């Protein structure tokens, strides 16, 4: 299957144009985000095609993709729930929030996604919102001072097809949409 064709290929070209011609390889991260926005995770086809676009091997692309936690190489839910449990958040009760994220979403510990395919849960290192701990991101949108009760509400809302309003910035309604914004391709609306 071809990932980078038609409009996706044009998007890839606009990403390549950001970097000097002699340093096309710099585009690998935004291209991975673009692939992720199309397929919901980074597939082997995408790794191969990005390698071909940049003139590097599939292994080199995979080496980059597997280094970073925000690229998902395995099946991924429609929504990715990220819960920081690092010290500042832990001290404000993040571990209970993380447990509740699993409980409410139906993602077993160690599992990639829920049976219904709606959710993936990530334990995160510091998300840089220590002033509003515990910090949570849903599709990379911030939710502040999240309690287990609030986590239940957020998950129930997503299940009902609602997009919860983040603490800052607009909401992305899926992991794919957020990945497209991360590729720098989205006209992001005001909050």
């Amino acid at each position, binding site marked *: 299957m071809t990932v980078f064709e038609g409009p996706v290929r044009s998007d890839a070209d606009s990403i390549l144009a*950001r*970097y*000097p011609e*002699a*340093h096309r*390889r*710099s*585009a*690998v*991260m*935004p291209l*991975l*985000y673009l692939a992720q926005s199309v397929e919901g995770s980074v597939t082997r086809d995408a790794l191969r095609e990005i390698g071909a676009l*940049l003139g590097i091997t599939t292994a080199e692309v995979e*080496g*980059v993709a597997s*280094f*970073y*936690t*925000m*690229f998902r190489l395995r099946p991924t839910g429609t929504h990715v729930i*990220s819960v920081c*449990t*690092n*010290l*500042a958040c*832990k*001290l*404000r*009760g993040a571990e*209970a929030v993380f447990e509740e994220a699993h409980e409410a979403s139906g993602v077993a510990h160690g599992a990639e996604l829920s049976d219904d395919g709606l959710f993936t849960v990530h334990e*995160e*290192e*510091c*998300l*840089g*919102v*220590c*002033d*509003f*701990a515990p910090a949570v*991101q849903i599709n*990379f*949108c*911030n939710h502040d001072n999240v309690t287990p009760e609030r986590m239940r509400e957020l998950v129930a809302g997503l299940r009902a097809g609602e997009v919860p309003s*983040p603490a*800052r*910035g*607009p909401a*992305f309604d899926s992991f794919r949409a*957020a990945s497209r*914004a*991360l590729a*720098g391709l989205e006209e*992001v609306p005001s909050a």
Partner: protein
Amino acid sequence: MSLRFEPRLTRDWDDPSVIGLEGYVAKGGYQGLSKALAMTDADIVEVVKSSGLRGRGGAGFPAGMKWGFVPRDTGKPTYVVVNFDESEPGTCNNRELVERDPHRLLEGMAIAALAIGCETAYLYVRGEYLWQSVVLERAITEAYAAGHLGPDVQGSGKRIDAVLHRGAGAYICGEETALLNSLEGLRGQPRLRPPFPAVEGLFASPTVINNVETLMNVPDILVRGADWFRELGTEKSPGTKMVTVSGKVERPGNFEVPLGTPFRVVLEELAGGVLGGRTLKAWTPGGSSTPMLTAGHLDVRLDYESLAEAGSMLGTAAIMVMDETDCVVDCATRMVRFYAHESCGKCTPCREGSWWATRVLERLEDGQGQEADLPIMRDLGTNLMFRAFCALADGTASVINSSLQHFPDEYEEHVRLGGCPFKVEHLEEVSA
């Protein structure tokens, strides 16, 4: 002591209009850039040097000196790279600085570009700061339209382009050579130095990498001068510093303070004291990688030299507060687990050491620790410190060494009791 000073980086935080170009310019924005355009490169470097501005990202290296190291006769382009990969646990002041005042960063970046003759600046933004990267993109678009960036900056004929690049979740990319590798499309692993980035950085060309807060201090230094900058802070640590206070305090948040402000003032006046009126037990002065201090260090001043004297570091001035109900071993376990997760895998002491330290700490916390585990931890701490490829492992070692130094009894009690002495009490409290 009461904290009275004229805020600098946060002075417009109550005015949301400065997020936009018009509001920023109305407050005097982009005048530092105008001033810089009328100066020689060498004079720009000189004023920043004499201000004594030191890097705010952790290492504290003088910014002007960094700029001065860039050779100008290599025939290669020069680059400015903004390090907005803020990832040190407990640190979030760059996030708020950009959310509230994005143009000040672009102005500081443009002045740095002029100082080293750079025509393309890169902004490396951590991936999780998606919203903040959008704020910056909008500011960049506005700055181009108004001619503060682009092919003819403020009609000077000089070109400064800005390219925003998003990371994807790797703490190590805050290390400047790892950041460069990441920006070049490689795994974010640190490079051997020398050559230093000033000589061979991005695309093997001379490069200056500066932290967000560092650059945001620059416009005022150009407009008001080096002497003005030195009116606050100490001789060796001039200026103000953004501190993040989190954990067990009444009012967590980002605060600007003159360097040299005692921790007591930050804790009691700004952060409202320890949460629930409890007793302070331990605190990190500059994020999890700086050695933790104790209640005995309440009057330590927050500046580069005072914290070094106290056996720690200013780091990113990210203060995480632990109270009497928090278990130091439990907290150390979580911090060390972070370093195990974020170790890039390049060198053995860090990759293996952080992993083993996590295993030992976890078994101590779980009540399966033995007498022999304490010397093992001491040994690990000693062997990790300054013996790895980059400073990431020094962070691991600092957690281990400082927690053992200040709280040996707590470790010993875990072994003696066969469990965590704080667990039961803590559980009762949570359910109450």
